[in-house]
């Protein structure tokens, strides 16, 4: 029974999508409620799975489901969670469910709840599956499953420039995953299996030299586009800006994590030698992303675009942590992934709610939010403060551990280079504080302009609280008690790095 | 009768068909011209079948095959033409470029 929990958590949303699609087109908001119910049940089964998780053996996959799927090329339907995937699976389940709560408050134009809900549920299955798939082909199927619903969500419910953004998003990520698939095939033909657990337990032989580097490069393109790592990030601001609120939230909170997860789960353990060669490059790109993201944030006048660029910077910290190849750094990266999911998801929720009220995302046109809607302004202030990495809130620990990892990187990596990069990250911390506080000043403080004073600005609605309270609570809890995430990741990261060190 | 006679006749009919397909504006006449081309081919098949009769009747079989396909093709083609005529009140092929992207 308990083993089917995982299948349930992954495929219940898919079943929900089928049910919602079968509803009569007159169902209207009822479709949202049905979708919410499915997402909540999936969340519950995920939480039950997490409660039954054996944290002392976090390094080995648990709740494993393994069935032959395509015998001709030895592809298995192989699911399982370990300490790294568990927090990300829970994050995906939680944020998806909260998106449905939020949808009950406000549907993006042009409505059509049935289609939107079905697509979101399909998307959720893809995201959940990516984090628990233990077979490269299955991983790839889930990975690509995510693309199509998101393409339609951006393209149909997005902003003014939605078509361009949707096509750019689709083609760019598809471009990356084509190379990823080629590398998967190369791995299969060299190592003889698609099974991730077997590939990572002992890094397969035969990937020395150029072949390993080329295969890694393919994986790198696939994962780095998704992260997104500078300079492969330019789809992100467009997609984030144009996507409807729930789309932006899921994109930022969960989908970006898939790329970083791919590095931790597949690229580094399967190709340790090549990873070692590439790690300094990734670290340099990551720190460029941190500084560059912060500078671009300073230049933004569009609130959602600003949050998008802040994601580029935060994902830079995560990639820096991974590239240190130390337990401290990688644990910091996974913690940072969860924290970024909670915080940036929250930021996009608030940005969406601001847009609903002020009908603009332009920072110069906003202002004095704290005087017109004090609660909403407080939530935005809280989230921005969390995002700039205040200790005691979730954003801090990921940055701390990533930078500490960079101070003494893994064996064989250039210490001087990494320390310079750490200093760069430190400057990034200062700039991050700068642009967030400047944004807060322009959005929440001052006196309302004539245009805004004429608007009727309602404060936070009960359904908005319903969607936000869990995130706000978890931001505090993860900040005060980092063991919430680290308790499960530490063992798994230990296992993965032990495999790499062999 | 030398086979060359049949070939000359067939190529004349075929050329007539090509001319019709390329120049006629009326879609029905275009379809008719296609039939001409097909029948020119059929004539060739039958002629060669008679010439190489010792080797079996493969040419005649193919001719029958082509007649069957032509019938289906004309059926569908005319159906399309009728639908286009209903929608646009015209079967002028010069105006039929709305499938272009």
């Amino acid at each position, binding site marked *: 029974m308990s083993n089917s929990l995982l299948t349930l958590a992954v495929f219940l949303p898919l079943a929900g999508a089928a049910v919602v699609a079968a509803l009569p087109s007159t169902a209207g908001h009822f479709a949202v409620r049905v979708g919410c119910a499915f997402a909540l049940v999936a969340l519950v089964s995920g939480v039950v799975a997490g409660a039954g998780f054996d944290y002392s053996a976090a390094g080995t996959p648990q709740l494993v489901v393994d069935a032959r799927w395509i015998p001709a090329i030895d592809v298995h339907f192989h699911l399982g969670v370990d300490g790294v995937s568990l927090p990300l699976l829970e994050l995906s389940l939680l944020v998806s469910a909260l998106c449905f709560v939020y949808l009950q408050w406000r549907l993006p134009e042009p409505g059509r709840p049935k289609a939107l809900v079905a697509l979101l549920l399909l998307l959720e299955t893809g995201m959940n599956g990516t984090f628990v798939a233990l077979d490269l082909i299955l991983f790839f199927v889930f990975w690509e499953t995510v693309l199509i619903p998101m393409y339609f969500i951006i393209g149909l419910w997005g902003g003014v420039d939605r078509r361009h953004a949707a096509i*750019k998003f689709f083609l760019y990520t598809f471009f990356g995953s084509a190379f990823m698939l080629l590398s998967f095939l190369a791995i299969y033909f060299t190592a003889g299996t698609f099974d991730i657990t077997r590939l990572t337990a002992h890094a397969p032989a035969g990937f020395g030299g150029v072949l390993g580097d080329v295969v890694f490069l393919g994986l790198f393109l696939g994962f780095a586009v998704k992260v997104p790592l500078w300079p492969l990030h330019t789809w992100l601001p467009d997609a984030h800006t144009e996507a409807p609120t729930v789309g932006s939230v899921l994109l930022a909170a969960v989908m970006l994590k898939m790329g970083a997860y791919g590095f931790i789960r597949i690229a580094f353990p399967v190709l340790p030698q090549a990873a070692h060669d590439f790690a300094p490059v990734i670290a340099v790109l990551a720190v460029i992303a941190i500084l560059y993201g912060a*500078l671009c944030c*300073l230049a933004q006048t569009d609130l959602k675009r600003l949050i998008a660029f802040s994601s580029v910077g935060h994902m830079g910290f995560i990639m820096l942590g991974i590239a240190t190849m130390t337990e401290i750094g990688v644990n910091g990266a996974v913690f940072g992934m969860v924290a970024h999911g909670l915080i940036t998801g929250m930021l996009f929720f608030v940005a969406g709610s601001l847009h609903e009220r002020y009908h603009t995302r332009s920072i110069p046109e906003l202002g004095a939010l704290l*005087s017109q809607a004090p609660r909403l302004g407080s939530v935005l202030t809280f989230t921005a403060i969390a995002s700039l990495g205040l200790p005691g809130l979730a954003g801090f620990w990921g940055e*701390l551990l990533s930078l500490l990892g960079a101070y003494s990187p893994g064996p064989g990596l250039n210490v001087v280079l990494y320390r310079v990069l750490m200093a760069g990250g430190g400057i990034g911390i200062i700039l991050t*504080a700068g642009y967030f506080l400047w944004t807060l000043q322009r959005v929440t403080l001052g006196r309302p302009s004539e245009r805004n004073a004429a608007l009727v600005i309602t404060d936070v609605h009960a359904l908005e609280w319903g969607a936000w309270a869990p995130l706000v609570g978890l931001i505090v809890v993860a900040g005060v008690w980092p063991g919430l995430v680290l308790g499960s990741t530490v063992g798994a990261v230990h296992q993965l790095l032990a495999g790499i060190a062999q | 009768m030398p086979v060359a006679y049949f070939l000359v006749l067939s190529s004349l009919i075929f050329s007539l068909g090509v001319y019709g397909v*390329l120049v006629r504006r009326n879609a029905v006449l275009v379809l008719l011209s296609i039939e001409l081309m097909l029948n020119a081919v059929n004539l060739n098949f039958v002629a060669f079948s008679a010439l190489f009769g010792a080797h079996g009747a493969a040419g005649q079989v193919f001719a029958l095959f082509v007649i069957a396909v032509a019938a289906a093709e004309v059926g569908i083609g005319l159906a399309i033409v009728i639908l286009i005529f209903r929608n646009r009140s015209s079967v002028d*092929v010069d105006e*039929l470029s709305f499938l272009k992207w």
Partner: protein
Amino acid sequence: MLGIAGAGGIGPFMWLVPGLAFASFFVVLFGGRRMPDRGHWTGIVAAGAGLLLSLWGFAGLATGAEAVHRSWTWFQFPGISVGFGMTYDFLAGIMFIVVTTVSLMAQIYSTAYMRDEPRYTWFYAALSLFTGSMLLLVLADNLVQLFLGWELVGLCSYFLIGHFWESSENSSAAIKAFITTRIGDVGLLFGTFVLFIGAHTFDIAALNRAAAAGHIGQGVLTAGALLLFLGAIGKSAQFPLHVWLPDAMAGPSPVSALIHAATMVVAGVYLVARMFLVFRAAHAALDVVSIIAAITMLIAAAAALVQDDIKRVLAYSTVSQIGYMMAAMGVGAYSASIFHLFTHAFFKALLFLGAGSLIHATGSNYMSDMGGLRTRMPHTFWTFLVGAAALAGIFPLAGFFSKDEIVGEALRAASSGRQITAWIVFASAVVSALLTALYVTKLCVRVFYGEYRGSTILHESPRGMTGPLWALTAATLGAGFLGLPVVGVFRHWINIPGEAAPGFSTLYNLVLPLGSLVVALAGVWVGWQVWARGRFVLEVKGTKLAPLYTFVAHKYYLDDLYLNVIVRPIQYEAARGAYSWLDRRVIDGLVEGSAHITGRVGGALRILQSGHLQRYLALLFAVLVVVAGVVMN
């Protein structure tokens, strides 16, 4: 409770003090608006109870209870273990008394001062949060926990400086304060990393032990100590990061008294004191501390002399006095430094609250709008005078004992031939003492003597404000005696960890203080002659001093330098360059460009796809004829 006291003092329960403050924060934040008093009693009671507990705990320490060290594991995995604990010793005990006393006074004062201001309840919640965070910082037994408190107080400072955020000037000052101190904070964080990798622990006591025993390499120690000091420079407003503190005066006066005079800004001094053995074991670190502090005290005292805004005078004065504390640390006068921290907290809080009372009455921050307030506001006048005299170092007030001890100890260090930096500290301390006496005299004369130059109808402030003023006056009068030479107990309480109190010396502890009193009195006399009697007219225009005056009056052009050379270029030019040019044009240009090229190629090819069936067929036949021709040949 008696059982607790008997079993080794209240020490192990001192976490209750920050605990109460945090509890008060949540109660006021979520319930304050529904309370009839709008929440201030919750904060006052929490701070008052905290003060009683602090006094009780300190009495326990003074009567021989052991210092308390407790530590629990916060989280750990191979290679790293972060603890959460408490260290309650004399140093922490003194800080507890300072923080809770000033917090209590500021909160009582605010019931009157902030009564008609917006966001009253939030103001009290933030004060409680600040008090709790500051105590968390003080109680920390490891550097990560200290960093947590360090950042939280910075956040509260940001909120409270920008309390009147309707005006963008105030919120800009808050941002400036946060960002400037955050530069230092990154240094503190990296210093923590350096020491952690060097000694494999975040524990403060263990780091000090390891440093003193020589278990940490010299390079690591020096780098670590200097990076930690960068944090102290930011938080304690030392040169060259002091620029945020004068602007931070945009906050309400009680906030200036609590955060920007008595507690948060001395966190840097506390940090150096906590990590003193690390600083001492690293060769260059204390020299750097001394030089930076000497520069700071001098330039800040000079800047205070030319300000017209009464709170800015006091802000520069605070910067200068923290320079004294830092300098004392730099020359090894540990006890003197903390003693000055202790007395300064009371008299500077008194001065800020007094300034608030003046501003409340006159409606202006500027001395040029005041004058002659001696008779109209007697309570404010007398209490302010005591605070000012203490600041100037007049016997027998608190500042005399503490500041002159620093001057004496600097000379002791210098004459023992240890460091040339001690001479620099000594010289700059003496000059600063003279400047201090001058600006203090100017301040008092301009505010309280002469004719009233403002336009409002004057009134003495209500009791809610004068009460705390008198209480702090009492503390200012009394605190100094703890540090009396010979009989004073302060030096026995607080000293370099593991060392005996320095002995009494007639020269350094008696003669020299008297000499420095003469300097202070001379300063006061000159000031009186200049500003009250008008004997000498200080006219710098046209003299050789004019450029110097302009230089000081423009805050040494440091603000302009930072703004025009660092902040603006990053905020506008670099940001726009990165986004508009590099991101949109180059990187995204490549991405979109590849799409455009594909589109162009397709556009060229689509000419063939005319949609005309007959053209397709013509093409088909043409190709067919050509191919057939080729094949036949």
